[in-house]
């Protein structure tokens, strides 16, 4: 058995322009229910607090808040606020947008990070952005604190935290 002369024609840009094509732009919009655990998490963000869920069987304090413990497979027992400080577990400095287009040189870079939140069980991280920091100065293990939107501007969204900054 030999696999060579494999089929399929790749189109050059020129050929692609000339070949017949059909265009379609979907017009779908979604409204995703937040449900119970995340609903409470967001409500709490509006109040300027990060909410975790506690499972008394395994003792984990989990982020983001959730209605059931997926390890013990039972409902979580209570919701409790944790601190709005944490430690950078890992981070990136991103120069591209979601559609792979490039940020302009003068546009600020996104610095997404996984942040382990103080007061939650070890390793319980959330993804958020870092700000007020030179990208070159960011380090794994850096202590960071949430910078909140003013209370009257909060809307129950993860973006009620603008970003985390070193403190």
């Amino acid at each position: 058995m030999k696999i060579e002369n494999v089929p399929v024609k790749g189109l050059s840009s020129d050929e692609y322009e000339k070949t017949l094509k059909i265009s379609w732009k979907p017009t779908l919009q979604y409204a995703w229910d937040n449900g119970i655990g995340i609903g409470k998490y967001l409500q709490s963000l509006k109040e300027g607090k990060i909410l975790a869920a506690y499972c008394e069987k395994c003792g984990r304090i989990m982020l983001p808040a959730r209605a059931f413990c997926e390890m013990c497979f039972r409902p979580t027992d209570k919701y409790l606020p944790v601190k709005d400080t944490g430690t950078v577990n890992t981070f990136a400095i991103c120069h591209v947008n979601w559609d792979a287009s490039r940020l302009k040189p003068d546009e600020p870079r996104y610095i997404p990070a996984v942040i382990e939140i103080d007061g939650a069980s070890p390793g319980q991280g959330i993804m958020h952005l870092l700000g007020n920091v030179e990208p070159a100065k960011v380090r794994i293990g850096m202590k960071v604190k949430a910078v909140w939107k003013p209370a009257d501007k909060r809307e129950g969204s993860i973006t009620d935290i603008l970003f985390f900054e070193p403190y």
Partner: protein
Amino acid sequence: MGFRKVAIVGAGITKFVRRAQETGPEMSYLASKMALDQAGLKLKDVEMVTLGTAPDAFDGVHMKGEYLLSGAGGNNKPYIRNFVGGGTGVFAPIHGWMHVASGACDVCLVVCSEKMSSCHPHPQGAFLTIFDHTTEQPLKPTLIWIFALEMRRYMETYGLTKEDIARVAVKNKNNALDHPSAQVAEAVTIEDILNSEVLAEPVHRLDISPASDGAAAVVLASEDVAKRLTDKPVWIDGVGWNLDTAYWATKDLYYPRYVEKAARMAYEMAGITEPHKEIQVAEPYDPFDYKELHHMEGLLLCERGEAARLTAEGYTARTGNLPTCPSGGALGVGNPIAATGLMKVIEIFLQLREEAGKRQVPGKPRVGVAQAWGDLMQVGTVIVLRR
């Protein structure tokens, strides 16, 4: 364990390209027909068909499984589509294995196809909703974020440099020069990788596999049928799959525990107790270069944190002790998601038959492993082949 023996008896693959003229069903047909011809079978000999393909949003075709049906030879047959993210391409033959190993049929065609070029402005847009719509999407994440985050954590944990990681891309893109399907084969150097554009520090453009169109297929047969068809059957000796939580930010990003669990499942079935000694050729999933290292460790092919050093020493080169991604991998051959995983299975199949041509690794390997990975650092799918 009461499973029947299952062999791969034929394989087919298309070129992997940036934009294919062919439609998804046409690509599926070309790969399927090649696999059947290689096996010496007709479509009427195929009793069941399994199809692996990534989310409908890539091709922009809902019910993609049904859309691809006739090209995959599934008309009026027991046919089923499976999907476990980027792990699909290795899960598809596992799914086919279930059909034959259980005794449900003797001949099963396994097809994987992807046409990502339909999606504009970029297939990354279709990835947005893998992030939690409430707690992550509002931050406007891109797919590269999570890889950059995972790569940095991996580098930090083991004190690795970008050069350590780039060696994988160099090896695979060079290996792919010998693969007839290759989309992005190139005689690159470490400098080329490090000088390529930074997309999300520490990830450079050449650390990443491309978006691709392509298809692949294999024919699986039960022991009796396989022995009638060929004197070189390649046996599926072990299969494993495992999924970890979607709360990806709560995991140890430096180690793919779910890949280890999938590998242990496959090794146990295959009677492999010392994978680093017994596996002679490997195709771990390499959509990003650090992922190959990550997955070598998850597959227990080396100690944790050792994969980069072994790569630097040439251990994973085609002529090394454990040739890894001799095909050229996703980084060199291209990455039409599901078809990539199956391409890796096909590579091990060809290597064990000593029919890999210029890519053939020396030493008449008898045992190999292929693995795929996917979703939010979640899915491990593993298949062990033996000649």
